[in-house]
Protein backbone atom coordinates (compact mmCIF):
# COMPACT_ATOMS: atom_id res chain seq x y z
CA UNK A 1 0.00 0.00 0.00
CA UNK A 2 2.63 2.50 1.11
CA UNK A 3 4.77 1.49 -1.87
CA UNK A 4 1.86 2.43 -4.17
CA UNK A 5 1.74 5.82 -2.46
CA UNK A 6 5.49 6.11 -2.97
CA UNK A 7 5.10 5.27 -6.67
CA UNK A 8 2.35 7.88 -7.09
CA UNK A 9 4.49 10.50 -5.36
CA UNK A 10 7.49 9.63 -7.54
CA UNK A 11 5.37 10.00 -10.70
CA UNK A 12 3.95 13.31 -9.46
CA UNK A 13 7.42 14.57 -8.61
CA UNK A 14 8.80 13.58 -12.01
CA UNK A 15 5.96 15.45 -13.70
CA UNK A 16 6.55 18.59 -11.60
CA UNK A 17 10.35 18.47 -11.51
CA UNK A 18 11.62 16.57 -14.59
CA UNK A 19 15.24 16.94 -13.40
CA UNK A 20 14.39 14.58 -10.57
CA UNK A 21 14.73 11.48 -12.76
CA UNK A 22 18.36 12.26 -13.60
CA UNK A 23 20.45 9.25 -12.44
CA UNK A 24 22.78 11.51 -10.48
CA UNK A 25 19.87 12.99 -8.59
CA UNK A 26 18.38 9.55 -7.91
CA UNK A 27 21.73 8.42 -6.51
CA UNK A 28 21.80 11.64 -4.51
CA UNK A 29 18.34 11.07 -3.03
CA UNK A 30 19.23 7.52 -2.07
CA UNK A 31 22.44 8.63 -0.35
CA UNK A 32 20.68 11.51 1.41
CA UNK A 33 18.13 9.07 2.71
CA UNK A 34 20.70 6.79 4.37
CA UNK A 35 21.18 8.51 7.77
CA UNK A 36 17.44 9.07 8.16
CA UNK A 37 16.79 5.50 7.07
CA UNK A 38 19.29 4.10 9.58
CA UNK A 39 17.79 6.11 12.45
CA UNK A 40 14.26 5.17 11.42
CA UNK A 41 15.07 1.45 11.63
CA UNK A 42 15.79 1.92 15.33
CA UNK A 43 12.77 4.16 15.81
CA UNK A 44 10.59 1.44 14.22
CA UNK A 45 11.68 -1.08 16.86
CA UNK A 46 10.89 1.36 19.67
CA UNK A 47 7.51 2.44 18.28
CA UNK A 48 6.46 -1.16 17.49
CA UNK A 49 7.06 -1.84 21.18
CA UNK A 50 4.67 1.03 22.05
CA UNK A 51 7.53 3.34 23.03
CA UNK A 52 8.90 6.50 21.47
CA UNK A 53 12.43 7.87 21.26
CA UNK A 54 12.58 11.66 21.23
CA UNK A 55 16.26 11.60 22.11
CA UNK A 56 17.34 10.17 18.78
CA UNK A 57 18.32 13.48 17.18
CA UNK A 58 20.53 14.57 20.10
CA UNK A 59 22.01 11.05 20.18
CA UNK A 60 23.07 11.37 16.53
CA UNK A 61 24.54 14.83 17.21
CA UNK A 62 26.43 13.60 20.26
CA UNK A 63 27.86 10.65 18.31
CA UNK A 64 29.13 12.93 15.53
CA UNK A 65 30.74 15.09 18.22
CA UNK A 66 32.34 12.10 19.96
CA UNK A 67 33.60 10.67 16.67
CA UNK A 68 35.11 13.97 15.55
CA UNK A 69 36.75 14.46 18.94
CA UNK A 70 38.47 11.11 19.32
CA UNK A 71 39.40 10.15 15.75
CA UNK A 72 42.98 10.54 14.55
CA UNK A 73 44.58 9.35 11.33
CA UNK A 74 45.97 6.17 12.92
CA UNK A 75 43.99 3.12 11.74
CA UNK A 76 43.64 1.43 15.11
CA UNK A 77 42.43 4.69 16.70
CA UNK A 78 39.76 4.95 14.00
CA UNK A 79 38.72 1.38 14.76
CA UNK A 80 38.61 2.08 18.50
CA UNK A 81 36.68 5.32 17.91
CA UNK A 82 34.04 3.51 15.86
CA UNK A 83 33.72 0.89 18.61
CA UNK A 84 33.44 3.65 21.23
CA UNK A 85 30.66 5.35 19.24
CA UNK A 86 28.70 2.12 18.81
CA UNK A 87 29.12 1.33 22.49
CA UNK A 88 27.98 4.86 23.45
CA UNK A 89 24.86 4.40 21.33
CA UNK A 90 24.09 1.13 23.11
CA UNK A 91 24.58 2.83 26.50
CA UNK A 92 22.25 5.71 25.52
CA UNK A 93 19.60 3.15 24.59
CA UNK A 94 20.19 1.16 27.76
CA UNK A 95 19.68 4.31 29.82
CA UNK A 96 16.42 5.14 28.02
CA UNK A 97 15.17 1.58 28.32
CA UNK A 98 15.94 1.23 32.02
CA UNK A 99 14.30 4.55 32.86
CA UNK A 100 11.25 3.73 30.74
CA UNK A 101 10.76 0.28 32.20
CA UNK A 102 12.08 0.16 35.75
CA UNK A 103 11.55 3.73 36.93
CA UNK A 104 8.09 3.75 35.39
CA UNK A 105 8.30 7.16 33.69
CA UNK A 106 6.37 7.54 30.41
CA UNK A 107 8.83 6.94 27.51
CA UNK A 108 7.88 10.32 26.06
CA UNK A 109 9.10 12.10 29.20
CA UNK A 110 12.15 9.88 29.61
CA UNK A 111 13.44 10.42 26.09
CA UNK A 112 12.51 14.12 26.06
CA UNK A 113 14.69 14.58 29.16
CA UNK A 114 17.54 12.30 28.10
CA UNK A 115 17.38 14.15 24.77
CA UNK A 116 18.06 17.42 26.59
CA UNK A 117 20.86 15.71 28.51
CA UNK A 118 22.49 14.30 25.34
CA UNK A 119 22.06 17.68 23.67
CA UNK A 120 23.77 19.33 26.64
CA UNK A 121 26.72 16.95 26.35
CA UNK A 122 26.88 17.55 22.60
CA UNK A 123 27.06 21.33 23.22
CA UNK A 124 29.64 20.86 25.97
CA UNK A 125 31.92 18.55 23.98
CA UNK A 126 31.66 19.92 20.46
CA UNK A 127 34.54 21.86 18.99
CA UNK A 128 33.91 25.05 17.08
CA UNK A 129 36.34 23.79 14.46
CA UNK A 130 34.16 20.71 13.94
CA UNK A 131 36.88 18.35 15.19
CA UNK A 132 38.77 15.99 12.95
CA UNK A 133 37.56 13.14 10.75
CA UNK A 134 40.32 11.38 8.78
CA UNK A 135 40.09 11.66 5.00
CA UNK A 136 40.23 7.86 4.75
CA UNK A 137 36.99 7.52 6.72
CA UNK A 138 35.33 10.13 4.54
CA UNK A 139 36.49 8.41 1.37
CA UNK A 140 35.35 4.95 2.44
CA UNK A 141 31.94 6.14 3.63
CA UNK A 142 31.22 8.15 0.49
CA UNK A 143 32.66 5.74 -2.09
CA UNK A 144 30.21 4.84 -4.85
CA UNK A 145 30.02 2.70 -7.97
CA UNK A 146 27.35 4.22 -10.18
CA UNK A 147 24.06 4.16 -8.34
CA UNK A 148 25.41 1.69 -5.76
CA UNK A 149 27.34 3.26 -2.94
CA UNK A 150 28.88 2.23 0.36
CA UNK A 151 26.25 4.05 2.48
CA UNK A 152 23.44 2.45 0.50
CA UNK A 153 25.06 -0.95 1.01
CA UNK A 154 25.36 -0.35 4.78
CA UNK A 155 21.73 0.74 4.87
CA UNK A 156 20.54 -2.35 2.98
CA UNK A 157 22.50 -4.66 5.30
CA UNK A 158 20.76 -3.11 8.32
CA UNK A 159 17.35 -3.12 6.64
CA UNK A 160 17.56 -6.83 5.84
CA UNK A 161 18.91 -7.64 9.28
CA UNK A 162 16.06 -5.64 10.81
CA UNK A 163 13.47 -7.31 8.59
CA UNK A 164 14.86 -10.72 9.51
CA UNK A 165 14.84 -9.98 13.22
CA UNK A 166 11.32 -8.53 13.24
CA UNK A 167 9.70 -11.11 10.96
CA UNK A 168 11.60 -14.33 11.43
CA UNK A 169 12.89 -14.45 14.98
CA UNK A 170 11.20 -15.03 18.31
CA UNK A 171 12.49 -11.67 19.53
CA UNK A 172 10.67 -9.94 16.64
CA UNK A 173 7.39 -11.47 17.72
CA UNK A 174 8.05 -10.36 21.30
CA UNK A 175 8.49 -6.78 20.08
CA UNK A 176 5.09 -6.89 18.34
CA UNK A 177 3.56 -8.50 21.42
CA UNK A 178 5.11 -5.85 23.65
CA UNK A 179 3.39 -3.17 21.61
CA UNK A 180 0.16 -5.12 21.37
CA UNK A 181 -0.28 -5.98 25.01
CA UNK A 182 2.58 -5.79 27.45
CA UNK A 183 0.67 -7.48 30.25
CA UNK A 184 -0.16 -10.57 28.20
CA UNK A 185 3.46 -10.85 27.10
CA UNK A 186 4.51 -10.69 30.74
CA UNK A 187 1.93 -13.29 31.71
CA UNK A 188 3.31 -15.57 29.01
CA UNK A 189 6.50 -15.68 31.05
CA UNK A 190 8.56 -13.28 28.95
CA UNK A 191 10.68 -10.68 30.69
CA UNK A 192 9.09 -7.60 29.08
CA UNK A 193 11.73 -5.25 30.51
CA UNK A 194 14.50 -6.92 28.54
CA UNK A 195 12.48 -6.92 25.32
CA UNK A 196 11.76 -3.21 25.83
CA UNK A 197 15.32 -2.25 26.75
CA UNK A 198 16.65 -4.02 23.65
CA UNK A 199 14.33 -1.94 21.41
CA UNK A 200 15.80 1.27 22.88
CA UNK A 201 19.31 -0.15 22.54
CA UNK A 202 18.59 -0.92 18.89
CA UNK A 203 17.54 2.71 18.45
CA UNK A 204 20.73 3.91 20.17
CA UNK A 205 22.88 1.59 18.07
CA UNK A 206 21.28 2.72 14.82
CA UNK A 207 21.63 6.36 15.91
CA UNK A 208 25.33 5.78 16.45
CA UNK A 209 25.73 4.12 13.03
CA UNK A 210 23.95 7.11 11.48
CA UNK A 211 26.11 9.48 13.55
CA UNK A 212 29.35 7.85 12.43
CA UNK A 213 28.23 7.96 8.81
CA UNK A 214 27.13 11.59 9.08
CA UNK A 215 30.38 12.67 10.73
CA UNK A 216 32.30 10.83 8.00
CA UNK A 217 30.30 12.37 5.18
CA UNK A 218 30.50 15.91 6.56
CA UNK A 219 34.11 15.46 7.78
CA UNK A 220 33.17 17.02 11.12
CA UNK A 221 30.99 16.77 14.19
CA UNK A 222 28.34 19.25 15.23
CA UNK A 223 25.91 19.68 18.10
CA UNK A 224 23.04 20.28 15.64
CA UNK A 225 23.79 17.66 13.00
CA UNK A 226 21.14 15.28 14.26
CA UNK A 227 18.42 17.69 15.38
CA UNK A 228 16.07 17.05 12.45
CA UNK A 229 16.23 13.28 12.86
CA UNK A 230 13.93 13.08 15.86
CA UNK A 231 10.80 14.21 14.09
CA UNK A 232 11.87 13.00 10.65
CA UNK A 233 12.34 9.46 11.94
CA UNK A 234 8.96 9.51 13.66
CA UNK A 235 7.48 10.82 10.40
CA UNK A 236 9.13 8.06 8.37
CA UNK A 237 7.78 5.42 10.74
CA UNK A 238 4.25 6.85 10.86
CA UNK A 239 4.09 7.48 7.11
CA UNK A 240 5.21 3.86 6.72
CA UNK A 241 2.09 2.67 8.50
CA UNK A 242 3.37 1.81 11.96
CA UNK A 243 0.94 3.08 14.58
CA UNK A 244 2.23 5.06 17.56
CA UNK A 245 0.15 2.84 19.84
CA UNK A 246 2.53 0.01 18.96
CA UNK A 247 2.21 -3.56 17.77
CA UNK A 248 1.14 -2.78 14.22
CA UNK A 249 3.17 -2.00 11.15
CA UNK A 250 6.66 -2.94 10.15
CA UNK A 251 10.06 -2.08 8.85
CA UNK A 252 9.35 -2.29 5.11
CA UNK A 253 6.81 0.53 5.48
CA UNK A 254 9.39 2.60 7.32
CA UNK A 255 11.83 2.23 4.43
CA UNK A 256 9.19 3.58 2.04
CA UNK A 257 8.35 6.31 4.58
CA UNK A 258 12.02 7.29 4.82
CA UNK A 259 12.28 7.48 1.02
CA UNK A 260 9.16 9.66 0.84
CA UNK A 261 10.40 12.07 3.52
CA UNK A 262 13.86 12.52 2.05
CA UNK A 263 12.54 12.64 -1.51
CA UNK A 264 10.18 15.48 -0.66
CA UNK A 265 13.06 17.32 1.04
CA UNK A 266 15.12 16.84 -2.12
CA UNK A 267 12.29 18.19 -4.27
CA UNK A 268 11.97 21.18 -1.94
CA UNK A 269 15.70 21.83 -2.39
CA UNK A 270 15.30 21.63 -6.17
CA UNK A 271 12.32 23.93 -6.27
CA UNK A 272 13.80 26.44 -3.82
CA UNK A 273 17.01 26.55 -5.84
CA UNK A 274 15.08 27.24 -9.00
CA UNK A 275 12.87 29.96 -7.51
CA UNK A 276 15.53 31.33 -5.19
CA UNK A 277 14.05 30.99 -1.72
CA UNK A 278 15.54 29.58 1.46
CA UNK A 279 14.54 25.89 1.58
CA UNK A 280 15.52 25.30 5.23
CA UNK A 281 12.71 27.61 6.41
CA UNK A 282 10.15 25.56 4.53
CA UNK A 283 11.58 22.15 5.46
CA UNK A 284 10.27 22.50 9.01
CA UNK A 285 6.79 23.26 7.76
CA UNK A 286 6.92 20.44 5.20
CA UNK A 287 7.86 17.81 7.80
CA UNK A 288 5.16 19.02 10.18
CA UNK A 289 2.52 18.89 7.49
CA UNK A 290 3.53 15.45 6.16
CA UNK A 291 3.32 14.01 9.67
CA UNK A 292 -0.10 15.53 10.34
CA UNK A 293 -1.40 14.28 6.97
CA UNK A 294 -0.04 10.79 7.67
CA UNK A 295 -1.70 10.70 11.08
CA UNK A 296 -4.99 11.84 9.54
CA UNK A 297 -4.71 9.27 6.76
CA UNK A 298 -4.17 6.31 9.07
CA UNK A 299 -6.81 7.57 11.50
CA UNK A 300 -9.47 7.35 8.80
CA UNK A 301 -8.78 3.73 7.93
Amino acid sequence: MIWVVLLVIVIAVVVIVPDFIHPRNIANVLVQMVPLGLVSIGQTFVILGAGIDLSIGPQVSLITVIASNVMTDTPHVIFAAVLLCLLSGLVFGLLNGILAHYVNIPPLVVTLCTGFIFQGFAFALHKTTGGHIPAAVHNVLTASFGILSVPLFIFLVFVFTGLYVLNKTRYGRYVYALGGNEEVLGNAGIHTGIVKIITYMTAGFMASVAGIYLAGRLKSGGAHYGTAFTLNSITAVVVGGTTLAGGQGGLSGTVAGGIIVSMLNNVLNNVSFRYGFQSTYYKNILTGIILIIAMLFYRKR
Partner: protein
Amino acid sequence: MSKGQRTLRTHGMGSWFFRSYGVYVGLVLLIVLSGVLSPQSFNATDLLNLGKQAAGLGIVSIGQTLVILTGGIDLSVGSVITFIHVFSVGTILGRPHLVLPVSALCLVLGLSIGSCNGLGITKARISPFVMTLCMDLILRGLYLIYTKGQPRGIVPDNLRFIGRGRVLTILPVAFLIWLLISAVFIFILKKTTFGAKVHAIGANPKTAFLSGVRNDRIILSIYALTGLCGSISALVLTGDMGAVSLGLGSDYALDSIAAVVIGGTSFVGGIGGVAGTVAGAFIIKLLIALLQKVNISHAGRLIIQGILILVIVGVYSKKSKS
Protein backbone atom coordinates in the same frame (compact mmCIF):
# COMPACT_ATOMS: atom_id res chain seq x y z
CA MET B 1 -6.88 2.14 32.25
CA SER B 2 -4.21 1.19 34.76
CA LYS B 3 -3.00 4.79 34.82
CA GLY B 4 -6.28 5.96 36.26
CA GLN B 5 -6.45 3.23 38.86
CA ARG B 6 -2.99 4.08 40.07
CA THR B 7 -3.97 7.63 40.89
CA LEU B 8 -7.05 6.50 42.77
CA ARG B 9 -5.02 4.76 45.44
CA THR B 10 -4.49 6.74 48.60
CA HIS B 11 -1.09 8.31 49.01
CA GLY B 12 -0.93 8.69 52.77
CA MET B 13 -0.78 11.91 54.72
CA GLY B 14 2.98 12.48 54.46
CA SER B 15 3.07 12.01 50.74
CA TRP B 16 0.09 14.30 50.30
CA PHE B 17 1.80 17.05 52.30
CA PHE B 18 5.03 16.53 50.39
CA ARG B 19 3.29 16.84 47.05
CA SER B 20 1.16 19.82 47.98
CA TYR B 21 3.57 21.97 49.98
CA GLY B 22 6.97 20.36 49.49
CA VAL B 23 7.65 22.65 46.56
CA TYR B 24 7.26 25.76 48.72
CA VAL B 25 9.60 24.28 51.33
CA GLY B 26 12.06 23.66 48.50
CA LEU B 27 11.63 27.21 47.23
CA VAL B 28 12.35 28.72 50.65
CA LEU B 29 15.41 26.49 51.06
CA LEU B 30 16.68 27.52 47.62
CA ILE B 31 16.16 31.23 48.38
CA VAL B 32 18.05 30.80 51.67
CA LEU B 33 20.81 28.92 49.86
CA SER B 34 21.20 31.65 47.25
CA GLY B 35 21.17 34.20 50.09
CA VAL B 36 24.01 32.35 51.79
CA LEU B 37 25.95 32.14 48.52
CA SER B 38 25.67 35.85 47.81
CA PRO B 39 24.44 37.80 50.86
CA GLN B 40 24.67 41.18 49.10
CA SER B 41 21.86 40.27 46.68
CA PHE B 42 19.53 38.89 49.34
CA ASN B 43 16.87 41.56 49.86
CA ALA B 44 13.31 42.42 48.91
CA THR B 45 14.27 44.31 45.75
CA ASP B 46 16.18 41.38 44.35
CA LEU B 47 13.41 38.94 45.19
CA LEU B 48 10.90 41.18 43.40
CA ASN B 49 13.32 41.33 40.51
CA LEU B 50 13.32 37.56 40.46
CA GLY B 51 9.53 37.69 40.34
CA LYS B 52 9.78 39.93 37.28
CA GLN B 53 12.28 37.63 35.57
CA ALA B 54 10.23 34.52 36.31
CA ALA B 55 6.96 36.07 35.05
CA GLY B 56 7.34 35.02 31.40
CA LEU B 57 8.12 31.45 32.36
CA GLY B 58 5.45 31.46 35.06
CA ILE B 59 2.67 32.54 32.72
CA VAL B 60 3.42 29.98 29.99
CA SER B 61 3.82 27.28 32.64
CA ILE B 62 0.23 27.86 33.76
CA GLY B 63 -0.90 26.64 30.35
CA GLN B 64 1.54 23.75 30.48
CA THR B 65 0.10 22.79 33.90
CA LEU B 66 -3.42 22.55 32.49
CA VAL B 67 -2.19 20.43 29.58
CA ILE B 68 -0.15 18.07 31.74
CA LEU B 69 -3.05 17.79 34.22
CA THR B 70 -5.15 16.26 31.44
CA GLY B 71 -2.35 13.81 30.62
CA GLY B 72 -1.12 15.72 27.55
CA ILE B 73 1.96 17.77 26.78
CA ASP B 74 2.59 20.94 24.78
CA LEU B 75 5.98 20.99 23.07
CA SER B 76 5.07 23.99 20.89
CA VAL B 77 5.14 26.69 23.61
CA GLY B 78 8.70 27.78 22.79
CA SER B 79 7.88 28.41 19.13
CA VAL B 80 4.60 30.11 20.06
CA ILE B 81 6.58 32.56 22.21
CA THR B 82 9.18 33.29 19.53
CA PHE B 83 6.52 33.54 16.81
CA ILE B 84 4.35 36.02 18.74
CA HIS B 85 7.49 37.89 19.84
CA VAL B 86 8.91 38.51 16.35
CA PHE B 87 5.43 39.12 14.94
CA SER B 88 4.52 41.74 17.55
CA VAL B 89 7.84 43.60 17.35
CA GLY B 90 7.90 43.36 13.55
CA THR B 91 4.36 44.77 13.20
CA ILE B 92 4.61 47.47 15.86
CA LEU B 93 7.99 48.71 14.56
CA GLY B 94 8.35 51.14 17.43
CA ARG B 95 4.97 52.90 16.94
CA PRO B 96 3.38 53.30 20.41
CA HIS B 97 -0.22 53.68 19.15
CA LEU B 98 -0.05 50.21 17.58
CA VAL B 99 0.83 48.42 20.81
CA LEU B 100 -2.74 47.90 21.97
CA PRO B 101 -4.30 46.62 18.70
CA VAL B 102 -1.28 44.43 17.88
CA SER B 103 -1.23 42.98 21.40
CA ALA B 104 -4.91 42.14 21.06
CA LEU B 105 -4.19 40.53 17.70
CA CYS B 106 -1.35 38.53 19.29
CA LEU B 107 -3.69 37.19 21.97
CA VAL B 108 -6.13 36.10 19.25
CA LEU B 109 -3.25 34.51 17.33
CA GLY B 110 -2.10 32.63 20.44
CA LEU B 111 -5.64 31.41 21.03
CA SER B 112 -5.94 30.26 17.41
CA ILE B 113 -2.61 28.41 17.44
CA GLY B 114 -3.64 26.68 20.65
CA SER B 115 -7.03 25.85 19.13
CA CYS B 116 -5.28 24.27 16.13
CA ASN B 117 -3.37 22.05 18.55
CA GLY B 118 -6.59 21.26 20.36
CA LEU B 119 -8.49 20.47 17.17
CA GLY B 120 -5.72 18.18 15.93
CA ILE B 121 -5.71 16.35 19.24
CA THR B 122 -9.46 16.03 19.76
CA LYS B 123 -10.99 15.91 16.28
CA ALA B 124 -8.17 14.25 14.33
CA ARG B 125 -7.10 12.15 17.35
CA ILE B 126 -3.41 12.93 16.84
CA SER B 127 -1.44 12.32 20.02
CA PRO B 128 -0.60 15.56 21.86
CA PHE B 129 3.16 15.35 21.58
CA VAL B 130 3.07 14.66 17.81
CA MET B 131 0.56 17.43 17.17
CA THR B 132 2.45 20.01 19.24
CA LEU B 133 5.82 18.90 17.87
CA CYS B 134 4.45 19.42 14.34
CA MET B 135 3.04 22.78 15.39
CA ASP B 136 6.46 23.67 16.81
CA LEU B 137 8.10 22.92 13.45
CA ILE B 138 5.46 24.73 11.44
CA LEU B 139 5.67 27.87 13.60
CA ARG B 140 9.46 27.75 13.45
CA GLY B 141 9.27 27.66 9.67
CA LEU B 142 6.73 30.49 9.67
CA TYR B 143 8.72 32.85 11.85
CA LEU B 144 11.87 32.16 9.87
CA ILE B 145 10.00 32.98 6.66
CA TYR B 146 8.45 36.08 8.28
CA THR B 147 11.78 37.43 9.54
CA LYS B 148 13.94 35.99 6.72
CA GLY B 149 16.28 34.91 9.50
CA GLN B 150 16.88 38.49 10.62
CA PRO B 151 14.17 39.87 12.90
CA ARG B 152 13.85 43.61 13.14
CA GLY B 153 11.81 46.24 14.97
CA ILE B 154 11.93 48.41 18.06
CA VAL B 155 9.95 47.87 21.26
CA PRO B 156 8.12 51.11 22.19
CA ASP B 157 8.03 52.28 25.81
CA ASN B 158 4.42 51.36 26.51
CA LEU B 159 5.08 47.74 25.53
CA ARG B 160 8.22 47.78 27.66
CA PHE B 161 6.06 48.85 30.58
CA ILE B 162 4.37 45.44 30.92
CA GLY B 163 7.77 43.76 31.02
CA ARG B 164 9.91 46.22 32.92
CA GLY B 165 7.54 48.73 34.47
CA ARG B 166 6.93 49.10 38.19
CA VAL B 167 3.78 49.98 40.06
CA LEU B 168 4.52 52.45 42.90
CA THR B 169 8.15 52.31 41.71
CA ILE B 170 8.65 48.94 43.37
CA LEU B 171 6.19 46.24 42.30
CA PRO B 172 7.07 44.82 38.86
CA VAL B 173 4.10 44.91 36.46
CA ALA B 174 5.11 41.58 34.92
CA PHE B 175 5.06 39.93 38.34
CA LEU B 176 1.60 41.34 39.08
CA ILE B 177 0.26 40.11 35.72
CA TRP B 178 1.65 36.67 36.48
CA LEU B 179 0.14 36.56 39.99
CA LEU B 180 -3.21 37.77 38.67
CA ILE B 181 -3.40 35.12 35.94
CA SER B 182 -2.25 32.46 38.40
CA ALA B 183 -4.95 33.48 40.87
CA VAL B 184 -7.59 33.31 38.15
CA PHE B 185 -6.50 29.81 37.12
CA ILE B 186 -6.18 28.57 40.70
CA PHE B 187 -9.76 29.72 41.21
CA ILE B 188 -10.93 28.09 37.98
CA LEU B 189 -9.25 24.77 38.79
CA LYS B 190 -10.39 24.62 42.43
CA LYS B 191 -13.81 26.20 42.43
CA THR B 192 -15.47 25.72 39.05
CA THR B 193 -16.93 22.66 37.36
CA PHE B 194 -14.51 23.29 34.50
CA GLY B 195 -11.64 22.71 36.94
CA ALA B 196 -13.23 19.57 38.30
CA LYS B 197 -13.65 18.26 34.78
CA VAL B 198 -10.00 18.95 33.97
CA HIS B 199 -8.91 16.90 36.98
CA ALA B 200 -11.43 14.17 36.13
CA ILE B 201 -10.12 13.82 32.57
CA GLY B 202 -6.58 13.64 33.89
CA ALA B 203 -7.44 10.95 36.42
CA ASN B 204 -9.41 8.80 34.02
CA PRO B 205 -10.67 10.03 30.66
CA LYS B 206 -13.11 7.15 30.21
CA THR B 207 -14.74 7.60 33.58
CA ALA B 208 -14.92 11.34 33.00
CA PHE B 209 -16.62 10.77 29.64
CA LEU B 210 -19.09 8.27 31.10
CA SER B 211 -19.92 10.76 33.87
CA GLY B 212 -21.01 13.26 31.26
CA VAL B 213 -17.87 15.31 30.74
CA ARG B 214 -17.42 16.38 27.14
CA ASN B 215 -13.71 15.54 27.07
CA ASP B 216 -13.10 16.98 23.62
CA ARG B 217 -14.46 20.41 24.50
CA ILE B 218 -12.45 20.63 27.71
CA ILE B 219 -9.23 19.47 26.04
CA LEU B 220 -9.74 21.82 23.09
CA SER B 221 -10.23 24.79 25.40
CA ILE B 222 -7.19 23.79 27.46
CA TYR B 223 -4.87 23.84 24.47
CA ALA B 224 -6.43 27.13 23.34
CA LEU B 225 -5.78 28.60 26.80
CA THR B 226 -2.19 27.34 26.64
CA GLY B 227 -1.74 29.17 23.34
CA LEU B 228 -3.20 32.27 25.00
CA CYS B 229 -0.80 31.94 27.95
CA GLY B 230 2.05 31.54 25.46
CA SER B 231 1.15 34.80 23.73
CA ILE B 232 0.76 36.74 27.00
CA SER B 233 4.12 35.38 28.09
CA ALA B 234 5.61 36.43 24.74
CA LEU B 235 4.38 40.01 25.19
CA VAL B 236 5.71 40.19 28.76
CA LEU B 237 9.08 38.78 27.68
CA THR B 238 9.21 41.18 24.73
CA GLY B 239 8.59 44.09 27.07
CA ASP B 240 11.23 42.88 29.49
CA MET B 241 13.82 42.28 26.79
CA GLY B 242 13.16 45.51 24.88
CA ALA B 243 14.70 44.03 21.74
CA VAL B 244 13.99 41.26 19.26
CA SER B 245 15.62 37.83 19.06
CA LEU B 246 14.92 34.53 17.32
CA GLY B 247 16.24 32.63 20.32
CA LEU B 248 13.77 34.07 22.84
CA GLY B 249 11.51 31.04 23.16
CA SER B 250 13.94 28.22 22.56
CA ASP B 251 14.25 27.01 26.16
CA TYR B 252 10.63 27.41 27.16
CA ALA B 253 9.38 23.91 26.31
CA LEU B 254 11.96 22.38 28.66
CA ASP B 255 11.68 25.12 31.29
CA SER B 256 7.89 25.06 31.45
CA ILE B 257 7.74 21.28 31.73
CA ALA B 258 10.39 21.47 34.46
CA ALA B 259 8.43 24.16 36.32
CA VAL B 260 5.22 22.10 36.16
CA VAL B 261 6.88 18.87 37.26
CA ILE B 262 8.80 20.53 40.10
CA GLY B 263 5.51 22.11 41.15
CA GLY B 264 4.13 18.64 41.80
CA THR B 265 1.85 18.14 38.82
CA SER B 266 2.02 14.56 37.65
CA PHE B 267 2.22 13.18 34.13
CA VAL B 268 -0.07 10.34 35.11
CA GLY B 269 -3.01 12.42 35.47
CA GLY B 270 -5.16 14.69 37.43
CA ILE B 271 -2.84 15.46 40.32
CA GLY B 272 -1.35 18.88 40.97
CA GLY B 273 -2.20 22.44 40.13
CA VAL B 274 -1.19 25.98 39.29
CA ALA B 275 -0.16 26.96 42.85
CA GLY B 276 2.71 24.47 42.74
CA THR B 277 3.72 25.63 39.27
CA VAL B 278 4.14 29.23 40.48
CA ALA B 279 6.75 27.99 42.94
CA GLY B 280 8.16 25.70 40.24
CA ALA B 281 8.77 28.63 37.87
CA PHE B 282 10.45 30.57 40.70
CA ILE B 283 12.69 27.60 41.44
CA ILE B 284 13.69 27.17 37.79
CA LYS B 285 14.62 30.85 37.47
CA LEU B 286 16.53 30.77 40.78
CA LEU B 287 18.31 27.64 39.65
CA ILE B 288 19.28 29.22 36.33
CA ALA B 289 20.56 32.30 38.16
CA LEU B 290 22.53 30.11 40.56
CA LEU B 291 24.03 28.11 37.68
CA GLN B 292 25.05 31.33 35.97
CA LYS B 293 26.62 32.55 39.21
CA VAL B 294 28.84 29.47 39.41
CA ASN B 295 29.62 29.76 35.69
CA ILE B 296 27.83 26.70 34.39
CA SER B 297 27.18 26.99 30.66
CA HIS B 298 23.93 26.56 28.76
CA ALA B 299 25.05 23.01 28.00
CA GLY B 300 25.41 22.22 31.69
CA ARG B 301 22.03 23.74 32.32
CA LEU B 302 20.35 21.42 29.78
CA ILE B 303 21.98 18.41 31.43
CA ILE B 304 21.08 19.45 34.97
CA GLN B 305 17.47 20.32 34.11
CA GLY B 306 17.01 17.06 32.21
CA ILE B 307 18.29 15.05 35.16
CA LEU B 308 16.21 17.12 37.59
CA ILE B 309 12.94 16.41 35.75
CA LEU B 310 13.76 12.69 35.50
CA VAL B 311 14.57 12.45 39.21
CA ILE B 312 11.43 14.29 40.29
CA VAL B 313 9.10 12.37 37.96
CA GLY B 314 10.85 9.17 39.01
CA VAL B 315 10.43 9.87 42.73
CA TYR B 316 6.74 10.77 42.34
CA SER B 317 5.99 7.73 40.21
CA LYS B 318 7.73 5.42 42.69
CA LYS B 319 5.67 6.96 45.48
CA SER B 320 2.36 6.51 43.69
CA LYS B 321 3.31 2.96 42.69
CA SER B 322 4.02 1.72 46.21
